[in-house]
């Protein structure tokens, strides 16, 4: 186990290095001069030159990259020029709401997806399978931003049950739960579709295994067979899928946060792109990409831990 862990961690080094390269050079490809974006249309050439040299924008790209990477290793992400504060502080402040949203969405997605998958498998080809299957198909094929608008139209505008955007009420700072529901549900429904489909397949496979027949022959109650013997084995196979979905939920936060004006990292990223705040974009993308990588690593490790067949 320890060797596996060390091996996996070492393999992360080139991945993270690759991410940093991509993040840095993709940003450099964006047209437009950050110095002009900062100083605006009233800037003088003199001020522009000074700012370019202050931001080291006049240095060759590889040199800029090495400086940036060197600062990163010391935990220095630079200063966001559109916000005039440290990128690190901004990311830290914005990460909380994103983790809350993505975490809630992930739990919802897991619970809804697994439950739907089990229901479909148990009543295979029966009406629950058909109904859930239809919902799942809709969930998979509906773009989240569209689903978000539909949910807002129904639950915020028509019924008025949930606020349309934000994290806390601007009047009394309350209502975290009601503000959280719609964005979390949007993210969860799309992700849950995939989980439900794969869980259904997994579960059907497990239910056809010999040991299930043995359990039935022993006269065990069906609830125990499904809930205990079959579920545990089917879920183990779901862990990598859940790992990918966790990454999806984290990445999906970017547009769901924009639609719902959730004050998280995703919305900060979108604003930073619009204002050409390159250091903030780089920092935010780096954090999100690393989050994705680590979630997948975590899923692999977890599966390794839970599934004895994978152990050497």
């Amino acid at each position, binding site marked *: 186990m320890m060797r596996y862990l060390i091996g996996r961690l070492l393999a992360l080094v080139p991945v993270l290095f690759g991410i940093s390269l991509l993040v840095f050079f993709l940003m450099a490809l964006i047209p437009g001069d950050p110095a002009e974006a900062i100083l605006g249309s009233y800037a003088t050439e003199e001020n522009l030159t000074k700012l370019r040299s202050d931001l080291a924008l006049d240095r060759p790209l590889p040199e800029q990259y090495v400086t940036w990477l060197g600062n990163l290793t010391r935990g220095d992400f630079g200063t966001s020029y559109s916000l005039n504060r440290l990128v690190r502080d901004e990311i830290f402040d914005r990460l909380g709401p994103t983790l809350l949203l993505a975490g809630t969405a992930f739990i919802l997605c897991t619970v809804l997806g697994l439950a739907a998958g089990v229901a479909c498998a148990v009543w295979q080809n029966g009406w629950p399978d058909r109904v859930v299957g239809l919902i799942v198909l809709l969930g998979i094929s509906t773009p989240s931003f569209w689903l978000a608008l539909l949910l807002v139209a129904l639950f915020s505008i028509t019924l008025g049950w949930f606020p349309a955007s934000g994290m806390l009420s601007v*009047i009394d700072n309350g209502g975290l739960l009601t503000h959280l529901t719609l964005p979390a549900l949007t993210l969860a429904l799309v992700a849950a579709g995939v989980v439900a489909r794969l869980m259904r397949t997994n579960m059907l496979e497990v239910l056809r295994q010999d040991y299930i027949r043995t359990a039935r022959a022993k006269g065990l109650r069906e609830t125990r067979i499904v809930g205990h013997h079959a579920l545990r084995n089917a879920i183990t196979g779901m862990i990598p899928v859940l790992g990918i979905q966790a990454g999806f939920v984290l990445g999906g936060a970017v547009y769901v946060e924009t639609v719902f004006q959730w004050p998280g990292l995703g919305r900060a990223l979108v604003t930073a792109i619009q204002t050409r705040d390159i250091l903030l974009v780089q920092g935010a993308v780096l954090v999100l990409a690393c989050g994705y990588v680590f979630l997948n690593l975590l899923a692999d490790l977890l599966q390794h831990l839970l599934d004895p067949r994978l152990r050497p």
Partner: protein
Amino acid sequence: MDRMIRRLPIVTGKGCALMGLFAACLLAGCQRTAPIPTNTLVIGQLAEPKSLDPQAATALNDFRIAANLYDGLVRFKNGTLEIEPALAESWEISGDGRTYQFSLRGGVRFHDGTPFDSDAVKFHFERILQPDHPFHDTGPFPLAFFFSSIKRVETPDARTVIFHLDEPFAPLLSNLASPSGFLVSPSAVKKFGRAFGRHPVGTGPFVFDGWESNRLVRLRRSADYWDGAAKLETLIFRPLTDENARLTELLAGGCDLVMEVPPDVVTFFRKEPHFEVLEAVGPHLWFLILNTREGPFRDPRMRHAVTLAINREALTRDLLQGTASVPTGPIPDAFAWATDPSLKPSPYDPEKARSLIREAGQEGATLTLYAAEGGSGMLAPREMATAIQADLAKVGLTVRIETFEWNTFLNRVNGGLLGRADMAQMAWMVNDPDTLPFLALRTEAWPEKGGFNSGYYSNPEVDRLLEEARSEPRQDARGDIYRRIQKIVIEDAPWVFVASWKQNAVATSRVHGLELQPSFLLLLKDAWKTPAAL
């Protein structure tokens, strides 16, 4: 076996428990969210403000908040761009237009208790104008050039301020009424330094009460405002960067008022009884700069031909869906005191355009049009470029559109169109009739001389009149000069005057006493709300 499975009471215990918990959460929220209180106005803004220091800010988004926190020496009279007294009760301008003497209102205090007096005014202008001022580093002050003609501020007593100008500059009063002229508390600037922009202190009808990044800016009523207390107790400005979020918040009751609603949706709100669409034509001009130095547009007939060939009425009505009007000339029609109401925009007349093109011998000419991808005040630049291209194709002119990202676009256009393009889009938002023609139509404003006259228009008469207007202290006499300029420039047609943007906002029918201003400042002192209908 199938029968046994069908008898299952529940699928899995744990899963159902969690589903139940979630359903309970949903049900807990199943009541209509509480309406916004009657004493509070929630405004959906386009973006997070950058700074609430009115001298450091440049964006309308920030000025909308600042306009409720501060006052200037003078202000724009309600619904117009005419000047009326504010913190100065009266003023006198010397005959040569070089000395402005203001008598200040007595008994006014900044929100932090600092008395408003001539020293505060002096501090304010020296801070932005003198590089060696101890608080000049609280800038930068991008719009300080509005006041660069002020060479010395004299304060003979606490209630008198005298500005000494190095040259006559009649637009000074309009600039003093603009947000850049809003007066800040000197003690607050000294206390907060560079952070003043996040701790604004003025004399306005509302007091700053908090700024939570990406969430809200809150103002509360100033009880002893010199011009009568505001009706609302609290203003909350929410940055809603997503267009859809602004609309859904308005529909769902999370905002009372949202600014700058896209054209498509304005049409929808006009039909809704619970909402009111507010509009004001502003001092904005969207125009095509024509390269008068080389190519087809050296010939004035060609310049008139494109003006006649572009269906501006249809463009503003259909493409911009009525969010802009067709301007008459280079001075935006919002300056009612400086424009001639009897002048009408030239009509759409492709027939006449064709004959002018024939006369000029330019049939089938190919023209290059510089278009922006977006940008401040540019409306829908790409769509407008395509519409113009289609209109000109109807009179046999081929238009080649070149599109640039906004900052690149500005660089290329401001550098002059010579060797680059025949036409370029441009838009300006100004606060005095002088600004645009002075900076972009004079011979002295050619790009090689550092100005914005990218099409190289030159008419000595216009140059002379613009200088003359600057030294004319009386507003009505100045207005006459601008009317003459307007006529000459329309005759010379160095630009195609395409659109003047109307600012819009949509409010719920609970909001009353609100009027959008041609200055585009959002003044909320006299706004009030009725209780929510149950």
